[in-house]
């Protein structure tokens, strides 16, 4: 299946914290990243890909276009997806992650905006975020996707042909018929460009082609 990257604008991370960020001693445990798509019409999201950097849990909310009259609503499409099994240890801390639309809680059609909510309960890490964020939508179907019937529904090998008594051996018949087919194909493929130079059609000449000289 092909996919096409959607150009997006990733806003700066916003830390959610009680109290003043600059003066408080404790580090924030929640970050919010907004992703907008300024140059794209509402699209169906296929895949979200990013590289984790010490984020333990990820929630995603999506704003979808419903109709021109009602304002678009925010819907949670991913809730507390675990990126690090143990927030205090390294595992999963710097892995590449792919999230597909079938992993989401809601339909991912007509996406206007995304909001990523990152949580890291462990105080061990100085900072956390996600990097190299990329959003994909489904690409155009390649033309070769339509397979002929004989290829998409092959005769299953397990199905033994119900042989009637006295029917000739199919494999030997098949071998002969295939040879005949090959010979015919060979002749069909061979052709000569040389013409013998006949100007008549079914034994009759076109008067205009005959010269009197």
């Amino acid at each position, binding site marked *: 299946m092909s996919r096409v990257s959607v150009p997006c604008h990733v806003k700066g991370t916003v830390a959610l914290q009680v109290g003043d960020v600059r003066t408080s001693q404790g580090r924030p445990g929640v970050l919010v990243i907004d992703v907008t798509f300024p140059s794209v019409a509402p699209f169906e999201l296929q895949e979200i890909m990013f590289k984790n950097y010490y984020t333990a849990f990820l929630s995603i909310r999506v704003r979808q276009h419903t109709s021109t009259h009602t304002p678009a609503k925010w819907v949670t499409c991913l809730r507390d997806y675990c990126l690090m099994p143990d927030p205090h240890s390294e595992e999963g801390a710097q892995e590449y992650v792919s999230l597909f639309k079938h992993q989401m809680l809601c339909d991912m059609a007509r996406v206007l905006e995304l909001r990523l909510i990152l949580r890291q309960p462990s105080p061990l890490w100085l900072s956390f975020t996600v990097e190299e964020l990329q959003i994909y939508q489904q690409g155009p179907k390649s033309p070769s996707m339509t397979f002929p019937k004989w290829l998409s529904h092959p005769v299953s*090998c397990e199905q033994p042909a119900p042989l009637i008594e006295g029917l000739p051996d199919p494999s030997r018949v098949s071998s002969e*018929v295939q040879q005949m087919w090959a010979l015919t194909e060979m002749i069909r493929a061979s052709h000569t460009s040389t013409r013998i130079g006949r100007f008549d059609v079914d034994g009759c000449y076109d008067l205009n082609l005959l010269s009197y000289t």
Partner: protein
Amino acid sequence: MKMAAVEKRRQVVAPAASFADSSRPAVSRAAATAESEEDFLRQVGVTEMLRAALLKVLEARPEEPIAFLAHYFENMGLRSPANGGAGEPPGQLLLQQQRLGRALWHLRLAHHSQRTAFNNNVSVAYECLSASGRKKKPGLDGRTYSELLKRICRDGEAPEEVVAPLLHKIQCRDHEAVPLDVFRAGMLTCFVLLEFVARAGALYQLLEDPALAVADRRVGQAVLDTLEGALQASDAAAVPARFLEAGSRLGPDSLALAMDRALVARRPSSPMTREEFLEKAAALFIAKVKPVA
């Protein structure tokens, strides 16, 4: 004196003379070194002739090489101008038959699947047939070409009704000059059709009811229809897809299914003769042959 005789012998080109000479005691063998024997063979053309013969044997890989070589040299004799000029000038008709025979022999040297060898032989046969005409008219006329096609088909033991449509399609008119390419295509088609008919014959034997010695028309027709389907359905498709599709259609499973279906259908059973089967099969092949234009 004897030295002179030896010298003379070495220059003689005609093989007959040298055979007569060889009975003489070669006194001056010491003088005429081993090299001279080699020279002699080369000068009289035996070296070249044997080399050509060996190449032909290698090319054709005959099952009976001695018979093959005997036939080969017999043809060489017919071809050499000395032989043709010395005897009574044979009748025009006889000469024509000889030429046809020689051309046929060349054509049969290599199977058509050995394409290079086959093409070579076709060229030689073409020369054989065309060189013999009057000096004014080099090239091959349609009459000879058609005659040759008929001979090939007749010798190929294919029933006349089976090959007649092909001959009609690729024959040239009597007065027409046949270019080499057309000649080659015609010969190739003819030989391939003969093989096709032989295959169809083998297929008929497979389909034959051993007790009745005839095939069931329903089964025979089903097999032919399957082949026709594989040949036709994919006319428009690109080559690799076409081949794959044909493979799928002509696999044992789908053929078994087709034959099975034919028997299950509630049509009365009637025999299909071998001739009819061959004729119908050949029609499928001939439909794909491009006519001479």
